[in-house]
């Protein structure tokens, strides 16, 4: 009756469990380390993507969206539905899922974030937490509590790599992460809309003066953040299966990535994600897989205590 709701999701693969079907015993120690690094960078890319999702919303609103992980879960599950119900091929199902989650992001902003007048941080925290468990609860009703598989995008034939192996899906994960991060960089650095989104949090009044409607920018950031989260959920799905409650851990890890690298600092977030992935993978492989998740949170706490602005972030003066 009382099943563990919080943490029953674990990435069901990696050095200790899952599909990478290779024999550790045939590897030298160096090759094993290399294998862990590959796994780490793969998972780290996912964390980086999720962290970027946090970052986009944070940049335009200074809100930490606790429902970020649910975007990831929804991306995966909507793709499953697209494939099973509409019999779409993976790419189309994926696009549909990304659009769907963007719309959910927009709904979240309009229905829950915007209505309260002059909300305190605690109010906003509780609202996004509420949204997160609402989405999770609804998903468990719609999709049930079983995990769903998605076939790997281009087969499961491992690619040999200096004595270790790389799963083709890993290449997909890293590739998609790289493309998304680079496009976001272009978007925020080069386009007018992108620059405006950054400006609307830093200088809401100034942004308004040059004719940027802040509330539209917030809406856009929720849509974009939903899309990025969904993409993360889709590419990781073949490696981890998708399940209604995967969002909790995914969201938290993405947040860890953002904090480690420095929230508000896109490059830092990517950096933080990859570091977290590698540390976790090495920890799980060399120490104990059971404590893998604890490692991430210990790092999170140490960062928060000693360098809350992150490795690459800068301190900013608080206005008194």
């Amino acid at each position, binding site marked *: 009756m009382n099943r563990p*709701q919080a943490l029953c999701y674990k990435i069901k693969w990696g050095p200790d469990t899952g599909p990478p079907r290779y024999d550790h015993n045939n590897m030298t120690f160096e090759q094993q380390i290399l294998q862990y690094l590959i796994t780490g960078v793969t998972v780290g890319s996912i964390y980086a993507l999720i962290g970027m999702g946090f970052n986009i919303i944070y940049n335009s609103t200074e809100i930490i969206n606790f429902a970020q992980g649910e975007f990831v879960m929804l991306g995966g599950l909507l793709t499953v539905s697209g494939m099973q119900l509409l019999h779409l091929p993976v790419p189309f199902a994926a696009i549909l899922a990304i659009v769907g989650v963007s719309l959910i992001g927009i709904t979240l902003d309009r229905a829950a974030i915007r209505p309260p007048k002059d909300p305190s941080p*605690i109010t906003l925290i509780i609202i996004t937490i*509420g949204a997160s468990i609402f989405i999770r609860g609804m998903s468990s009703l719609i999709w049930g509590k079983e995990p769903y598989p998605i076939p790997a995008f281009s087969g499961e034939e491992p690619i040999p790599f200096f004595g270790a192996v790389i799963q083709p899906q890993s290449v997909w994960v890293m590739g998609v992460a790289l493309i998304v991060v680079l496009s976001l960089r272009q978007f925020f650095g080069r386009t007018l809309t992108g620059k405006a989104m950054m400006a609307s949090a830093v200088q809401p009044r100034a942004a308004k003066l040059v004719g940027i409607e802040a509330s539209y920018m917030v809406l856009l950031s929720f849509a974009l953040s939903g899309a990025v989260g969904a993409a993360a959920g889709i590419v990781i799905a073949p490696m981890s299966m998708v399940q209604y409650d995967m969002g909790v851990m995914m969201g*938290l890890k993405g947040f860890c990535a953002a904090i480690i690298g420095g929230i508000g600092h896109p490059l830092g977030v990517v950096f933080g994600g990859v570091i977290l992935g590698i540390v976790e993978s090495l920890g799980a492989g060399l120490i104990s897989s059971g*404590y893998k998740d604890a490692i991430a949170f210990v790092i999170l706490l140490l960062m928060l205590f000693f360098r809350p602005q992150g490795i690459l972030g800068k301190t900013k003066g608080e206005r*008194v």
Partner: protein
Amino acid sequence: MMTLSLMKKPLAGFVLFSILLLLLPFTVTNDYYINVLIIIGINSIIVIGLDLLVGYTGQISLGHAAFYGLGAYITGILSARWAWPPIGGLLISLVMVGILAFLIGIPTLKLHGHYLAMATLGLGIIVFIFFQELDFLTGGPSGLVGIAPMSLFGIPFDSDLSYYYLVSAFLLATLLLSINVVRSRVGRALRAIHGSEVAASVLGVNISRFKVGIFVLSALYAVTAGWLYAHYITFISPSSFGFMFSIKLITMVVIGSLGSLWGAIFGAALLTSLPEFLVVFENYETSVFGLILILVMIFMPRGLMRGLEDLIKRMIDLGRQNLKERSPTS
């Protein structure tokens, strides 16, 4: 209306509430409901402490289930593995968790807003992982069996009714201590911190001392509740102390009204009993909690109970105005 006047005179309220607790079992026909009342009482103890932290002082904690769990596990392990008496378990867990909360509280409570939320959440998860992984002590994910039933100074509390009165006694003690704290120099300092940390500190309030102090106190309440829970159920598993339970606790505080001790009890009672009485609730429980959190925060950011009170006040005012407007013509 009654709640209105109760807020003004908490001690009169306290006496009334004691009488209510004393008489409540006689109105209950089904033994099962005594069970529910016991769990409500236990949850109320945690939520009162959490409200002191969140509602009064304005510091969020998303990891309070961990302290509750530590209270249950420490006494449970001592009892199941080394046959310690419950009272020993209580004292040890109060001391251990008190020290832990103190050490953790110092760096944690320097953080604000989202950072504090995430740090406490992270703490909760780390503790949860230890419950699961230290299986030679905790029994791992499948749980810890063989915790002795409650017995204090040779008196066994083996019937549900006697346990109900035990929990009620602890609840009343917690409540009384909390009322005293709230209505004192300490309580004012806490609310001042909530209002403006800078203003409080230029008036000489040692912010970190009071924040850490109330953090420790609320952790100790949760430990006491965990202790009562462990020796009542006599079987515990990590799943009762996870992230979701921390969220439920926050929901109880929010529903009951941030910064109202009576509200805290109301919130605990409502959210503990709802799933018990609405069978249909089971599948929708998570979604409903989520929806409640969102709606209350949007429409009644001061909490359901205060929100209703404001509504009643406004209606009374309206009624008065109507009377006034009518009287000259009549």
